[in-house]
């Protein structure tokens, strides 16, 4: 089993690609690499916002770009294994809401220490991910509808627990420091993010379990015949996603100083966008953690950059004050564009060979 996974089809093709790229490093083959295109997009974004925006590349703003978006980055990391298996998890944003509310209750009403409450919140995320895993991997139900159901269930539980409007605050300063202080000149939560990124990278690119995600996404039946425990590994991807969503919720609460039922609304879209922008196929089977990180960077820079533009107006409002709506809209369009590029290019190429 291990030999088959270590030298699978996709390894060979990567090797082949590398050899061919090395042999002929033309501009065209360089542009064909997803990461290169993404780096160009990010560079263009930075140029645009630096020229239109106010103090975009200022030191504090650069650290804000990461501080304010690290939760999306965590969800994107969590979503990568799931999408690699050909699945999807729409429930991660709602899971953040539920974990945030539970964390607030543990600290405020059960008088727990923030550390214990955070561990329990991550535990609840793991359990919620476990519910997804049970239904998707064990009962073989479609991930789309299962996670649409838990999307509603988790947010609904968060609303029920807070009776729709209650919010929890008054957390100790030592806990809020996690969201608002720097360690060695870098926002504290970025260190956690880097650790998680390293862990996911090791899992996906260096471990047998992680490498099986792509095999499952490429062909679940084939993966099963190759001796991969498909159900166990599929379940693991969803459990991991739930746990990381719990962690993201704790970090969000630490930054905002407040836990509400609406924490993380719409974050699932941003995470999926980052993953797909990063070159992971939405049908599963191919993609990389490095791509996801670049995709996340593109989304994060867009979100932040728009909020720095005060000199230009849209619908009689400075762009900075409608940045949230505008970046949401552009993220949606960006996702569609990223999805449409490959099939459009294929269709055009097919037409060219025909004529």
């Amino acid at each position, binding site marked *: 089993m291990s030999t088959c996974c270590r030298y699978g089809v996709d390894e060979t093709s990567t090797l082949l690609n590398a050899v061919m790229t090395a042999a002929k490093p033309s501009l065209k083959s360089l542009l064909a690499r997803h990461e290169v295109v993404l780096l160009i997009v990010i560079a263009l974004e930075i140029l645009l916002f630096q020229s239109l925006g106010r103090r975009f590349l200022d030191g504090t703003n650069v650290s804000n770009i990461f501080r304010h978006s690290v939760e999306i980055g965590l969800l994107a990391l969590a979503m990568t294994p799931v999408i690699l298996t050909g699945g999807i998890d729409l429930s991660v944003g709602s899971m953040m809401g539920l974990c945030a509310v539970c964390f607030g209750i543990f600290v405020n009403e059960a008088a727990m220490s923030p550390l214990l409450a955070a561990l329990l919140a991550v535990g609840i995320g793991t359990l919620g991910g476990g519910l997804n895993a049970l239904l998707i991997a064990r009962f073989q139900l479609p991930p789309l*509808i299962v996670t649409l159901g838990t*999307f509603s*269930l988790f*947010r609904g539980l968060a609303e*029920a627990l807070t009776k729709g409007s209650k919010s929890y605050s008054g957390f100790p300063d030592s806990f809020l420091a996690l969201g608002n202080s720097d360690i060695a000149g870098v926002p504290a939560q970025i260190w956690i993010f880097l650790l998680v990124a390293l862990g996911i990278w090791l899992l996906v690119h260096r471990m047998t379990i992680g490498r099986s995600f792509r095999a499952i996404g490429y062909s679940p039946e084939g993966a099963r015949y190759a001796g991969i425990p498909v159900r166990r590994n599929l379940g693991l991807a969803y459990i991991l996603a739930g746990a990381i969503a719990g962690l993201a919720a704790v970090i969000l609460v630490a930054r905002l100083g407040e836990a509400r039922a609406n924490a993380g609304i719409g974050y699932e879209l941003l995470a999926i966008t980052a993953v*797909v922008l990063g070159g992971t196929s939405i049908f599963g089977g191919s993609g990389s953690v490095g791509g996801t990180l670049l995709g996340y960077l593109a989304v994060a820079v867009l979100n932040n950059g728009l909020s720095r533009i005060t000199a230009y107006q*849209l619908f009689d409002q400075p762009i900075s004050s409608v940045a949230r709506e505008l970046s949401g809209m552009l993220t*949606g369009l960006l996702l569609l564009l990223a*999805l449409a590029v490959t099939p459009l290019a294929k269709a055009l190429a097919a037409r060219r060979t025909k004529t």
Partner: protein
Amino acid sequence: MNGRYSREITVAAALGLLLVALAVFAPNFFELQPLLSRFTSQMPALVAAIGITLVIITRQIDISLGAQFSMCAVVAGLVAAAGMPLGVAILAAVGTGIAMGAFNGILVAWLGLPSIVVTLATMVTWNEMLRLWQQGRLLPLPDGIQWFGLSQAGGQGLVIGIAVVLLLAAAWAMRHLAAGRHVYATGTDAEAARLAGIDPKRVTLGVFVLMGGLAGLAAVLNLVQSPQVQPNSGDGLELKVIAAAVVGGVAINGGRGNLWGVLLGLLLLTNVNPALTHFKMEPYWERAIQGLVILLAVVADGMKRSKKSTA
């Protein structure tokens, strides 16, 4: 209860049980005027549910329908507020819906992209565009729009009438028209449908366009029930109608389901919340219950399938 209509019978029994419980414990639930108002207010969801049923039978999904609904309501409201007659406003709403549905349909049918991600993206795009454009303003409507300019009873009758006629027409067409059978064929096996001379891409595009048009019409049926337009009137509608369809026995894997089951599913789900308030429970549980019901329906469906495959 393993017959062809077992799901419909189960849901009808659950609905019956709920109504009997309400009759015994909260008889004022059945007072005519509130009951009629509640029923009328559920008609827009019924119209949207017709659309999503067709989409799911084709083995697709559309979670942007709530955003389409909101957008169409605002467009119709602006047209009406500009002094145009109601007919023009209705055409504008339906036309906007068709355009948005066609956008989804082209991306899904022609480019072969997964509908869940496409409609997730269009949902957010339309919603944020609407927020950017309207900034949460309430849009007051001119006189003569509410209840189509009729009396309240007349307007309620017309709203219910339109929805019921649409339901009957759609149910008949799904069973007796070639186009209706093509929807089932495409959802059961697109490749087999293609070999049988059906163009699955056209069918897929068609159901998304129809979904958009129905979302526009549903928005109109909702708009005439109040003196103003909420800028986010369609929020959460997608979950409500997807839940209704799944509970009503529409298979999420496509190819199976009928509109009568969906009607029962919708009635069951929409009466859960009034029942909760009548039984003095907190209404904040609505979304959680909706999610739980979706999961239960999917599990029931999956267990039925695996039983069939092992037998």
